């Protein structure tokens, strides 16, 4: 199953960044697909990007909502919120594990041999601060003299934008290099700190910073697809926690905000059938019955 996930991540990354003409055009893709919001974090100014970043789009709507309203156009971003709501209410945070190119990158970098570290659990709440402050509050309320806000998270923090758009575009369009200043170097520093952290910590950006993951995580407990934990069967061996790419202690309860539903705990870690999957009212794969034979064989 994890091999399937890896292939899906490869395909999703390729589909999100499938415009391969950029070395010739030296520009970003400008086709109609760019009106679609991608499910994962993928900068729309990446020269190969085929879709729009939902987080960047949401910030843009919020930053322009006041002047738009004054001009008779009320565009609060229902299209983006609806897209995220549809994905979230169906699958919760699942796109983080299966479809997000930046999440995929973090998993690959974490495979580099090194001493692995764990972060305190309270740090994972920081992403909600980034969501509320940088994605909602600042774009909505800090306005220029003309009434326009700015995309604060993209501008000051987003490492995906620096990696996927900043560095390639500076190579493709040398005229942009003249504009490089303190802001670019501060974003570059954030990127390098995070790249280094990815070697030692499991998915540090997803767990601590990502506002898109924070939005999806709000749906984890109420999505149609759910994971079920049976405390009566669980022996708390902590194998699920040790294997988890997000460091989630599944044995303490299912559908925690940081669970990205990669299903590694279900398919590989748990040998006791304490984990099962549910889609709506339909039990997709009841863990106890499926694992029973395996358990008896191993005795």
């Amino acid at each position, binding site marked *: 199953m994890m091999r399937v996930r890896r292939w899906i991540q490869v395909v999703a990354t390729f589909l999100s960044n499938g415009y391969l003409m950029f070395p010739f055009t030296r520009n*970003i*893709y400008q086709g*109609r697909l*760019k*009106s*679609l919001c991608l499910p994962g974090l993928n*900068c*729309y*100014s990446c020269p190969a990007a085929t*879709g*729009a*970043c939902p987080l*960047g*789009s949401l910030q*843009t709507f919020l930053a322009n909502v006041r002047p738009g309203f004054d001009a008779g156009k*009320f565009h609060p971003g*229902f*299209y*983006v919120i*609806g897209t*995220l*709501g*549809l994905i979230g*209410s169906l699958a919760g945070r699942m796109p983080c594990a299966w479809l997000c190119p930046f999440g995929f990158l973090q998993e690959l970098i974490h495979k580099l041999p090194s001493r692995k570290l764990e972060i305190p659990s309270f740090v994972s709440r920081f992403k909600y601060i980034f969501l509320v402050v940088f994605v909602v509050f600042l774009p909505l309320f800090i306005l220029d003299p003309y009434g326009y806000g700015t*995309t604060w998270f*993209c*501008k000051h923090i987003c490492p995906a*934008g*620096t990696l996927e758009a*900043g560095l390639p*575009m500076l190579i493709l369009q040398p005229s*942009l290099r003249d*504009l*490089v*200043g303190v*802001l*670019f170097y501060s*974003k*570059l520093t954030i990127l390098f700190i995070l790249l280094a952290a990815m070697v030692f910590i499991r998915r540090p950006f997803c767990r601590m910073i990502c506002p898109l993951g924070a939005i999806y995580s709000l749906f984890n*407990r*109420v*999505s*149609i697809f*759910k994971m*079920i934990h*049976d405390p*009566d*069967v669980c022996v708390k*061996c902590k*194998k699920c926690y040790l294997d988890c790419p997000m460091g989630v202690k599944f044995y303490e309860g299912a559908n925690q905000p940081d669970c990205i539903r990669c299903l590694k705990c279900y398919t590989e870690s748990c*040998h*006791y*059938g304490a984990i*099962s999957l*549910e889609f709506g*009212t339909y*039990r997709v794969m*009841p863990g*106890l019955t499926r694992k029973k034979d395996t358990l008896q064989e191993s*005795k």
Partner: protein
Amino acid sequence: MHALNSEKPEHATPRRQAETAAPLRKFPLILLVVSLILFISGLNSGEPVSVWEKAVRICLSCIGIG
């Protein structure tokens, strides 16, 4: 490593698991419908065009130079 030889309680049946998951089943559907309504109203008000207009221009903020 796993303690593979530990005993499983007999009362832990799939039915019991299903009972614990039951209470929240209506809310996801309500959430799905609300999201669908938001999505369609966004489509009708022309928001995808706004997304496209933003996405086809090089975002200087995203790059870190604007």
